[in-house]
Every structure is written in structure tokens, then in C-alpha cells.
């Protein structure tokens, strides 16, 4: 097996080498993210067969075995999320080839790689403090990338994100402090093993702090004020990553902490309520939104709420649906944002509905890609979204929460409404006067990258087997807490004489 550490190490080296590449030739900088994520994707695919098993392995760093030292806990659940992040990152990195980055470009690429690296680290680490560190890497690069265009709105969005994000991560740190103070360990498996001995009030306090802290990244209801603003003001490739990588990593952290560390069904089931609320808030806010970027941002909140709902149902079927939905949502939203970026090129940057009226008449292929994304989001076949939504709803009902499933379905009516309206605007026969014949820039590369994502959506939709298998082992791995503990610190527990 290839070492998963490379997933973090190689991009890290490449990230900081960006300025060096820039010294050779300015244009070479563009290729660094592509190289990094291409390599990472290759690694992920090498690791995929492993993700189909239910095992979690610990990858030891500096030869200190867990629970001591820092380690990666690479399991199917983490790898599944790493896969989402890498696919989105790869497509986005490819998209970057034809993208004029905001200056300073080397910093942009560096932060870009760091963002992906941070979220990859979050989903792979086995150490809770490392989780915090990676969270900070992710979020600091995200703040910077949001504000990087240095316009007023960008700075404003970045600041909002920063306020919420940094407060959230401080709370995470506080939670870690509580746990460490009680248990004296930072290894997640070890914490999970010992948490039953901890004062339950402290556990609850830590759980609250984690929910709030990771909830910011996971776009949970009252913590997601930054989402629409950041999605609206950040550069398009960054937005694709915000929904495809950052939100997913936050979700992963939330699930990992609640399921593996805390492991209390009652607390996990709080996610049901907050998932539903998040979903309704997102969908309702999107209903009357005229700016497509913000609309997609709200829709993203809605989708994340749905996934949280699935994770909150605390059952293997619904978690299965949840991870599948996380996958399709990541890919689909990235696709929609990339296409929207190109659409904006044809309207002089405007992304409101009226400016894009009739886009489909002039640019059928682009609108087709957009329609694929929309239809997949709506859960229609033969796209990936169909399977994930189906699995999610049926899973939540089978796991015994029909009321929540019904509420989720009601929320999707709203979703259908605004997406149908969006499609009818895009395919309108009346043309917006803002539409130009031809983009100022060559759009072949964005086309390929969007096609890549659309192809994933369609391929998964037509042939969901592998997808199901991955999701199945991921969901089982998440729920099998004892197995996780045993895989990571089994030898240690044995040496201590107790299992």
C-alpha cells in the first residue's frame, strides 16, 4: 500500500514551492496545483481498494505508535471524503489553468493547495489536535482566498467568515482542552475508548463545543451566516472548493467527533433537528434569490442540512445515504459553480437570473452541463444525485425517522421550485441583452473540467455499484466504533492487558 502520508506531504512541499516555480516561469505556477492534486488523485485511487474493506489503519509518523505520537487513521470513511475532496480539487485545479488568478498569483496557488491539503488532513488524521490544526490550515487559507480579490465585498465576506470561523475553531480548541484535561490523551481512538469514564457533563460540554466549532465549516444552521457572502464574493474556483472540500471536511469532523469520540446517540440525534432546520433555512432563503451564486450557496446550505439530517438519524442506512449525498453534493456543486463561472464570463461577470436569461439558447453545451448539475441536485435519474437522495430518504425512514424524512421531502419541493425556475430562465427563449456572443477567454479548459465532473455524475448515476460499495463500507466504518478503536490502538490495549 502506498503511504497516505504522501497525500499530505507532497502537496505541502509543492504548496510552498510555488514561488520557486514562479521564478522559472510565471506560467508554471498554474500547474502546481494540478500536479499536486493529480498526484493525490492517483494516490486516492491506489488507496480505494483499501477503502472498500472495513478496516481502519493507523499510519504512524515518527515511529511512535498510537495512542502516543501523531498518527493518521486512514479508514474507509475518511478515504471516502478524501476522494470527494480530491476529485473536486482536481477538476478545480484543471479549471485554474485558464483562470486569471488574483494577484499575487503565487500566494493564490499556495493557499489553494493548502486549503485542499488542510481538508484532506482533516479527514485522514487520527489525532484530535491535528484535526484542529488542519482545521485551522483549511480555514485560514479559506479566509484568505475569500478575501484575495481585495474588493470590498470580498474583504467583507472574508471578514465575516473569519469572525465566525476563528471563534468556532477556538471553541474546538476549548473542547479539546476539556477532553485532554479529563482523559489525558489526544488520540481519537484512545479518547473513544476512554470516554465512558469521563464526567458526562464535560463530555456534553465538549460535544457542544465541537458541534459549534465544526458546524461553522459544515454550514450548520445558525452558524452559516458567512456561507452566502463567501460564496458570492470569493473567486469561482475557491467557491467550488468551499462547497466541495471545506464543507465536506467540516462535516467529516462533525461526524467523526460525534460518532467516534462522543458516541452518544442522543447527542448525535440533535443533528436531525438541526439538519432539518438548516435544510429549511437554506431552501427557503434560496426560493426568492435572484443571484444564481447566492442561490447556489443557499442550496448548498440546504443540501448540507440534508446530509446532517442523515448523519443524525444514527443508523447505517441513513449514514449510507448521507455519505452518498455528501459525494454527489460535493461534485455537483463544484460542477454548478464552475459552469456558473463560465456563464459569468459571457455576461461581464453578472450572475443574476436576468443577465443569464436565454443562456441555454446560445450555449447549449454549457447549459446542458448546468442542467446535469441541477437535475442531479434535484435527485433525478440517471444522475448520481438520484441514488444518493433515494438512499438517504429510504435510509432515514428505515432507521426509524419517517417524520424527518417527510420534512426533508417537503423541503425538496421548495428546492425543485427554484431550480426549475432557474432552468426555465436559462432555457428561456428571450435573450438577455447582457449576453455576449463569445467569451473573452478561451473556454476549452473549463469545458473539459466541467465535463469531467459531469461525467462522474453520469457515470455514477448509470453504474452506481462502486459508489454503493464505497459508501457502504464508509458508513459501516463510521458506525463501527469498537472496530475503529481496535484498529488503531488494539496493540496498545492488548499490551495493557485489556480489550
Amino acid at each position, binding site marked *: 500500500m502506498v503511504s497516505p502520508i504522501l497525500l499530505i506531504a507532497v502537496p505541502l512541499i509543492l504548496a510552498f514551492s510555488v514561488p520557486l516555480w514562479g521564478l522559472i516561469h510565471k506560467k508554471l505556477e498554474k500547474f502546481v496545483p494540478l500536479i499536486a492534486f493529480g498526484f493525490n488523485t492517483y494516490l486516492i485511487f491506489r488507496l480505494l481498494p483499501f477503502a472498500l474493506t472495513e478496516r481502519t489503519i493507523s499510519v504512524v509518523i515518527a515511529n511512535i505508535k498510537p495512542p502516543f505520537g501523531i498518527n493518521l487513521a486512514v479508514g474507509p470513511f475518511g478515504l471516502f471524503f478524501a476522494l470527494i475532496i480530491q476529485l473536486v480539487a482536481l477538476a478545480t485545479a484543471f479549471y485554474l489553468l485558464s483562470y486569471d488568478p488574483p494577484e499575487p498569483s503565487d500566494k493564490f496557488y499556495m493557499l489553494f493547495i493548502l486549503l485542499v491539503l488542510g481538508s484532506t488532513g482533516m479527514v485522514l488524521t487520527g489525532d484530535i489536535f491535528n484535526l484542529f*490544526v488542519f482545521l485551522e490550515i483549511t480555514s*485560514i487559507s479559506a479566509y484568505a482566498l475569500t478575501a484575495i480579490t481585495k474588493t*470590498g*465585498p470580498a*474583504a467583507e465576506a472574508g471578514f465575516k467568515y473569519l469572525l465566525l470561523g476563528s471563534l468556532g475553531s477556538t471553541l474546538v480548541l476549548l473542547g479539546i482542552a476539556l477532553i485532554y484535561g479529563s482523559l489525558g490523551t489526544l488520540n481519537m481512538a484512545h479518547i473513544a475508548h476512554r470516554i465512558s469514564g469521563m464526567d458526562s457533563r464535560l463530555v456534553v460540554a465538549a460535544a457542544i463545543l465541537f458541534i459549534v466549532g465544526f458546524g461553522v465549516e459544515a454550514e450548520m444552521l445558525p452558524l452559516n451566516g458567512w456561507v452566502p457572502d463567501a460564496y458570492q*464574493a470569493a473567486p469561482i474556483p475557491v467557491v467550488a472548493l468551499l462547497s466541495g472540500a471545506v464543507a465536506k471536511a467540516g462535516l467529516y469532523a462533525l461526524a467523526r467527533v460525534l460518532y467516534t469520540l462522543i458516541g452518544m446517540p442522543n447527542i448525535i440525534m440533535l443533528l436531525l433537528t438541526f439538519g432539518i432546520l438548516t435544510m429549511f433555512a437554506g431552501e427557503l432563503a434560496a426560493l426568492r434569490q435572484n443571484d444564481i451564486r447566492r442561490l447556489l450557496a443557499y442550496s448548498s446550505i440546504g443540501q448540507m442540512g440534508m446530509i446532517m439530517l442523515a448523519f443524525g438519524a444514527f443508523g447505517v442506512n441513513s449514514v449510507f445515504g448521507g455519505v452518498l449525498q455528501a459525494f454527489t453534493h460535493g461534485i455537483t456543486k463544484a460542477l454548478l459553480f464552475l459552469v456558473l463561472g463560465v456563464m459569468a464570463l459571457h455576461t461581464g461577470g453578472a450572475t443574476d437570473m436576468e443577465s443569464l436569461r436565454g443562456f441555454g439558447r446560445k450555449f447549449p453545451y454549457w447549459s446542458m452541463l448546468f442542467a446535469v448539475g441541477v437535475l442531479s441536485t434535484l435527485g433525478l435519474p440517471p444522475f448520481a444525485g438520484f441514488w444518493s437522495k433515494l438512499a438517504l430518504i429510504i435510509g432515514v425512514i428505515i432507521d426509524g425517522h419517517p417524520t424527518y424524512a417527510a420534512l426533508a421531502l417537503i423541503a425538496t419541493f421548495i428546492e425543485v421550485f427554484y431550480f426549475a425556475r432557474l432552468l426555465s430562465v436559462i432555457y428561456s427563449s428571450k435573450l438577455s441583452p447582457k449576453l455576449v456572443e463569445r467569451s473573452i477567454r478561451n473556454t476549452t479548459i473549463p469545458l473539459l473540467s466541467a465535463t469531467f465532473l459531469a461525467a462522474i455524475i453520469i457515470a455514477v448515476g448509470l453504474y452506481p455499484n462502486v459508489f454503493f460499495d464505497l459508501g457502504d463500507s464508509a458508513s459501516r466504518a463510521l458506525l463501527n466504533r469498537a472496530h475503529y478503536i481496535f484498529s488503531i490502538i488494539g496493540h496498545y490495549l492488548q499490551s495493557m492487558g485489556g480489550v
Partner: protein
Amino acid sequence: MNPEALGKVIFYGSSIALFLIGLYIILVKRNLIKLILGLTFIESGVNLFLVSIGYVWGRTAPILNKPELMETPSKLAVDPVPQALVLTAIVIGVAVTAMALAIAMLIYDKYGTLNISKIKELKW
């Protein structure tokens, strides 16, 4: 009250106080700079808390520069891990603060104000 308990009260009390002061600032003050200060307060509170967790009354720093320390570090020195964590957290905190200040400058540049309730170009 024995000094150990008193020490705990002081450490934990002051960290909670720092946290609450910070919270008050970020909830009440409108100025961006003050908000950033508030964040820093909160962070310091948490850091202090983290350090005080690892501190054991009467022990020394976990720097193995004395022979008796080298022999039985776990008896004489405090837990080194929280200190390492705090070091990291401080670094991160500095980075965040720097970033926040930079963005605040940018905002002032573009909007001409630091009042957070007036920075509402993006909404709804």
C-alpha cells in the same frame, strides 16, 4: 484554602474571565479592531485554560535539563503536551489575528468605516 486549589481557581477563573470579556467585546462592540481584540481575548482565555490543565502544583517545566528530571520526569515535571498544544495554538492565533487585521485594513480601505453594522454590502 490550600494553595493548589487557590491556584486552580485563579487559573481557571482568569481563563473564564478572559473568555467572557472577549465574548462581551465581540457581542457588543461595533469596531472591527475591537472585535479582533475580543477574539484575541477569547483565544487567550482558551490558551490559558489549556495550559492550566496540564499544570500540576509545585512541579517544574518539562525541560529535561536536570538529572533528577531526566530520571523521573513524570513525577517532577508538568505535562508537556498542553504546553506544546498551546504553542501551536498561539501561533495559529497570531496568524488569524494577522489575517483579520489585514482584512480589516482592506475593509477600511474600501468602505471607509470600521463599524461592523455598516459593512453590509452582501446580504440576503
